[in-house]
Each structure stands twice: as C-alpha cells, then as structure tokens.
C-alpha cells in the first residue's frame, strides 16, 4: 500500500495538469458563453466527485450502524470531510460562472444550486457534530445524522422542483448537445478529480488511523500510571 501512494500522487499530478491544459487550451470555445464556459470543466467534475463522496458517506454510515465496524466510521468521516471541500468548490465556482451568463450571482429558486447548498449545510452540521461530540458514541450519532441528511436530500429536491428552474438542464444528457470534444475534456478532468479525491481521502484516512492509535496509546499509558 505504501508504494502505491507516490505512484497515485504522480498520476494525479499528471492528470490534473493535462486536464488544466485541455480545459484552458484544448477544448473548443463555447459559441454563446465564450471562454467563461471553461469553468465548467472544474464546476461539474467537482460536483460529481462531491456527490460520489456523500454517497460513500451514506453507505459507510449505514454499514457502521449494522456492523459497528471502526473502519466504516473512519471512511464516513473522511468522505464527509473531503466531500465538503469539493462541494465548496462547486458552490464557489457556480456564482462565478452564473454572473456573466445569467446576469445574477445566485438564483435562490434554482433546483440544483439550492439542493447543493442544503447538502453542503447538512454535511457541515455533520462535521460540527463530530467535533462537538463528547461521548465515546460519536460514531453512532454521526451515522444516524448522516442517514437523516440523506433522507432530506430528495425532499429538498422536490420542494425546489416546484419552482421554475433556471439551471441549464439540457447541457448533459438529453440527446447529447455537448460537443464530443468537450465531453472528452470533462471526463479527463473528472478522472483527475477522482484521483485527487482518492489521494486526499487516503492520506486523511491514514492520519485518522494514526490519531486513533495515539489516543488509544495515551489512554493505556494513563491507565498504567494510575495503577502504578
């Protein structure tokens, strides 16, 4: 496992630089939006990566509640933290793109925008809960909150679906109006972002393992001191 880390790091760096080159120079310029549209190659892959990480968090939380496996808990923590980072990228790049294209920074009635924002808020409250929890049962209550958060997402989606939506839906799917060259660049960037997410999660996971070992060792040591 240790040898895999530098290889993955190098692959990630290469893919990210290739993706950046392709997004800024390789991809064709969009006809109506112009160069601003190139932020798409960061906005969309970040969103997909964030949603994937939140999905992993949900699966890990359910697994933890069933099996009470410490690894599942650590995976849930790591995926939530990294997911929040990618989700922040989405929320920051969204308005930067929206301002020149829609003429407004933020469209409160928009379905994907608002769902993403609520998702972001839910996962931040999840991380705050983990930080503030005192008992040895952080993992259990965090897993329960993660399940509540996941149940909330479809309800948020439908509540906003009722409003008219401003987000450009036909860009992806719906007959593929996206230029194949653009698809290509988008997928390269997504793969690069996935590698980056994997790299960060891996590092954070090792850190969490080490932190828990230290905690355990300290607890043992203080027990020895008391008994002596």
């Amino acid at each position: 496992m240790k040898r895999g880390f530098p290889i993955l790091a190098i692959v990630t760096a290469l893919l990210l630089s290739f993706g950046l080159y392709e997004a800024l120079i390789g991809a064709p310029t969009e006809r109506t939006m112009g160069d601003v549209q190139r932020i798409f190659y960061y906005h969309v892959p970040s969103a997909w990566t964030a949603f994937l990480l939140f999905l992993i968090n949900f699966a890990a939380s359910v697994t933890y509640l069933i099996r009470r496996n410490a690894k599942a808990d650590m995976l849930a923590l790591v995926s939530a933290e990294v997911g929040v980072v990618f989700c922040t990228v989405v929320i920051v790049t969204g308005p930067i793109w929206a301002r020149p294209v829609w003429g407004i920074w933020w469209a409160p009635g928009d379905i994907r925008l608002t769902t993403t924002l609520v998702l972001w808020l839910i996962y931040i409250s999840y991380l705050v809960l983990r930080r503030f929890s005192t008992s040895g049962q952080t993992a259990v209550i965090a897993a329960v909150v993660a399940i509540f958060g996941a149940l909330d997402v479809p309800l948020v989606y439908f509540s906003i679906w009722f409003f008219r939506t401003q987000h450009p839906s036909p860009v992806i799917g719906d007959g593929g109006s996206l230029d194949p060259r653009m698809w290509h660049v988008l997928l390269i960037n997504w793969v690069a972002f996935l590698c980056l997410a994997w790299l960060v999660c891996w590092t954070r996971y090792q850190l969490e393992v080490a932190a828990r070992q230290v905690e355990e060792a300290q607890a043992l040591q203080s027990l020895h001191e008391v008994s002596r």
Partner: protein
Amino acid sequence: MTVLAIIRATLAKDLRLEWRSKDAINAMLFFSLLVVVIFSFAFDPTAEESRRIAGGLIWVAFLFAAIVALNQTWARELRNHVLDAYRVSPAPANPLFLAKAFGNFIFVSVLEALMMPLFVIFYKLRPLGPAWELLPIAILGTWALVVNGTFFAAISLRTRSREIMLPLLLFPISIPALLGLVNATTAVLTGEESARFWIALLLAYDVVFTVACLLLFETILEAE
C-alpha cells in the same frame, strides 16, 4: 405496561411539570412576542406587503421559539439520572420518544394558538385564499419541526454545548419543511396559488422522518 400506557404516563408527567413550572411556555411566548414587535417596527408593512412576508416571519419566529421547548425535553431527564433509569427498565424506547414528541407538539401548538391573534393584529392580516387550509398546514408543519427537533435534542445531549448544537443540527434538515410551511402559508394569505403541493410535501416530510425517528431512536437512546 403497554405502549399506550407508557405514552400516557410520560406525557402526563411532562404536561404536569410544565403546568406547574411554565418554564418553556413563558420563555417561548415572550420570545415570539419580541419577534413580532421588533419585526413590525423594522418593516412597518402595508397589508399587501405583510401578506407576502408574514408566512416567513411567523414560522421563523415559531421555529426559534420551539428550540426553547425542544432543548429542555431531555435535559430535564438528565437530573437524577431519569434517562439512565429508563434505559435499564424493560420499557421499549419508542413510546418514550412519541410521548416527548407529543408533549412538544402540544407546547408549540399552544404557543401558536396564543400568538396567531397577535400576528393578525400587528400585520393587519386577512387571508385572501381558503383560510381553513391554515389548520392542516399548522398541524403538519408543527409536527415536522417537533418530531425531528425531539430526535435531535436527544442527539445533542451527547455533545458539548448542547443548546447550540440542537439548532445547528435541526435547521439544515428542516429546510424542506420550512420551505413547505412558508410557501403554503403565503399561498393561503395571498390567495394567488394553491397550497396543495406544499401540504403534500409537508405530509411526505412528516411520514419519512417520523418513520426514520422511530427506527433509529433506540440506537440513540442506547448510545452511551
């Protein structure tokens, strides 16, 4: 003891405690009174404007006020280790949860019944849509806030500074319920559109989260 007996006993105890101390209801009433007065100074709306903003105002005021009742739901049981005693007793967990949620529902409903006339007076409200729809909206919406509130209050017991933790957990999850409540109320007040969809949304929210709370409450109660 049957499930109903446990619910009745716990609910009666909570209502009696509240009737004698009136801690939660007084704090909630005064808090929402302050919100009504301060906002009426801040906006000084015409009848037309107030129809548009009152829905949001009323429910945000009630949500903030409800936090008072929700926070003391379980904190009361920590003194003298009542919750620990409940945990070792053979009684199932869910009736306890339901009794607490019903109790909070009653407190918040009383608050709403007392505060509504004040809102009508201060904001010159006269609904243009079907006013009877406000009743199912209030019932479903109050339950939506209270069922999750009671559950998250039990979660925040396990954290530092639990009184701050409860709103931090509850508000993000309650966004769809609040959206439904505010839009349904505004729809009835302005009479411009039907509140049907929002009532259906509130119903769906209630069903989903009541089931989730009942499935997961035992896990939370036993987590120690």
